[in-house]
């Protein structure tokens, strides 16, 4: 029971973190020029003030600690393939929530990657 609860927390918080980051960064993306060393400080200060990004980092931390807990109650060969399922779930949500165009080619790619990660964990 506890391991499925942890799986739910890991997948749920990873998905929420990625959706929040993607939505916020698309709304106000960083220009390539801002990645120059002289402008990096300003760019970092700008990112640190954006609430959705702070919430996203909070969800990433939850996901990290839940994954640690999952590893303590389940084998790595269970934990990694199950969390790889988030790739497929996030692709579905990217289409539904972020309105991305997910073609057949991209669906096939996401499925191949999720299966590949599952095999690597065996």
């Amino acid at each position, binding site marked *: 029971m506890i391991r499925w609860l942890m799986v739910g927390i890991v997948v749920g918080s990873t998905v929420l973190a*990625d*959706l929040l*980051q*993607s939505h916020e*960064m*698309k*709304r*106000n*993306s*960083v*220009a*390539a*020029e801002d*990645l120059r060393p002289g402008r990096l400080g300003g760019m*970092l200060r700008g*990112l640190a003030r954006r609430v959705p*990004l702070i919430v996203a*980092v909070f969800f*990433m931390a939850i996901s990290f600690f839940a994954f640690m807990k999952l590893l303590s109650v389940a084998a790595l060969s269970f934990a990694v393939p199950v969390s790889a399922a988030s*790739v497929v779930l*996030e*692709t579905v949500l*990217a*289409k539904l929530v*972020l*309105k*991305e*165009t*997910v*073609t057949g*080619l*991209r669906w*096939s*790619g*996401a*499925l*191949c*990657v*999720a*299966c*590949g*990660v*599952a*095999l*690597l*964990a*065996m």
Partner: protein
Amino acid sequence: MSVGRAVADPIQPQQIPHRRIDVKTKVLTAFVVLTNVLGNFAMSWGMKHQAVELGVSPLAYIRLIFSPWVFIGTSLLVLWLLSRMTLLGWADLSYVLPVTSIGYVIIEFLGRYFLGEQVSWQHWAGTVLIMIGISLVGLTSANTTQQEPS
């Protein structure tokens, strides 16, 4: 009759050469993968070779964070987080997730090279599937929404 532009028009996103945007996205993708792989590897190496006994005292954890390998790993993972955020502003989430999965394959090979482990058929199959998946996603446009990097 030639008509000149009265004022200098700002460059619109659609006027930026698509190839330039694509190259920048690919370079940043490579940077995201590299910082993730090296960061995780340095963290893992540091944790395995740490001389600090971890207990309930927070001092031990602080000492561990400032040990060279763990510090390098943490710094690289902070860079990974920031560069991935930037990449998510330039490319679709459904593009970034599969493409950056190449990191799993590189970590596998780094682990095998440094730890000398055997490669099973499942691992080869997994590696091949990930590579096929990345190639398929790589054939699609990185950004299908309106925003483009400048």
